[in-house]
């Protein structure tokens, strides 16, 4: 009888232990999930260099190329504008009858969520610079009700916009007369870190994908010690 009692005691103890272990495991998984390190997109290269007589191999990540555009306030917008910031880039045009309004609705959610956060900016490239003059972009931004400090609508040389879209942000942006509105372009939202690297690509037409973006931004802010 005492033997049985002892066994029972130990059994209860190990049950509690197991429960605690399971709890810690679940808690740590949940913790890891919410603060996971975001992957870096694009082709990576390994580059050798000499350091104190030894060969060291660095991983060189895909980066957004240099650019220079003008926004709705005629302000020059370059990579420097986003120095020390995380920014979300997309490609659109104001007269777009298809996916752009959906993207704008979703980007507006991101804007509202991180409004006045000095570390977050949005960069919307017009792929139709012939119609989207500075004044058209200004009118569009005003009607959307957003501040030009945080959300830049830019236009520039169309070839340059297409090129940076395809090569840097890795999205489709080109003329296509068979498409409604005359352009073929992706609905992607691209999250860029302060080191000009792509850290997330989301379908800007789908609210649930944009939920992921809104959840990922704080993780990236934490990674750079910005919150």
């Amino acid at each position, binding site marked *: 009888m005492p033997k049985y009692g002892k066994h029972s005691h130990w059994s209860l103890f190990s049950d509690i232990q197991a429960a605690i272990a399971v709890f810690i495991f679940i808690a740590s998984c949940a913790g890891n999930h919410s603060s996971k390190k975001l992957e870096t997109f694009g082709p990576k290269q390994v580059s050798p260099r000499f350091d104190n007589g030894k060969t060291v191999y660095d991983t060189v990540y895909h980066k957004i190329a240099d650019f220079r555009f003008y926004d709705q306030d005629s302000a020059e917008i370059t990579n420097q504008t986003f120095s020390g910031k995380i920014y979300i880039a997309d490609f659109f045009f*104001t*007269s777009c*009858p*298809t*996916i*752009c*309004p*959906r993207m*704008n*609705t979703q980007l*507006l959610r991101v804007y509202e969520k991180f409004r006045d956060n000095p570390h977050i900016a949005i960069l919307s490239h017009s792929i139709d610079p012939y119609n989207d003059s500075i004044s058209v972009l200004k009118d*569009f931004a*005003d*009607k*959307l*009700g957003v501040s030009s400090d945080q959300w830049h609508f830019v236009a520039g040389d169309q070839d340059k916009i297409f090129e940076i879209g395809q090569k840097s942000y890795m999205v489709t942006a080109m003329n296509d007369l068979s498409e*409604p509105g005359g352009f073929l372009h992706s609905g992607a939202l691209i999250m860029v870190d302060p080191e000009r690297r792509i850290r997330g690509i989301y379908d800007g037409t789908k609210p649930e994908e944009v939920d992921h973006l809104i959840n990922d931004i704080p993780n990236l802010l934490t990674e750079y010690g910005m919150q």
Partner: protein
Amino acid sequence: MACSKLPSLLIVLWISYSALSCKYRDGNDYSSIPDRKKYLQYITAGKQLYLEHCGNCHQDDGAGLARLYPPLKNSDFMNADPERTLCIIKFGQRGMIKVNGVEFNMEMPSNSRLSGLELAEIATYVFSTFGNKPVLVTPDQMEALEPECKNSVN
């Protein structure tokens, strides 16, 4: 004997009352729509077409977007002149309009590449879902519209 038949009699009476009554559970009066089966078909097809062709700008819930795209939901402009609304659905809209006190001035493209049936399904869905009363719009109505109807918009 008579008493045992009373419950079934009440049920029969209730069913006939429900069938004859024009008020449905949503509180709308469908008496103006004799062909309810067709109406439901139009609403179902119209919703898909709306999401594909209209929801981009006017949003899936008809709420519009800021001062860029006007709302359809509870829109005074839309309800004030249904004929004008049908014209806009088919031929698009250019120039300033005022919806619920807010000015809108973005161009809406024409939908004339859609068939009369598709336009009727969209219009039926839009009026019934976002408007103030259920309406069955027919393909004939949409086909009869001429581009000149746009002149009466502004």
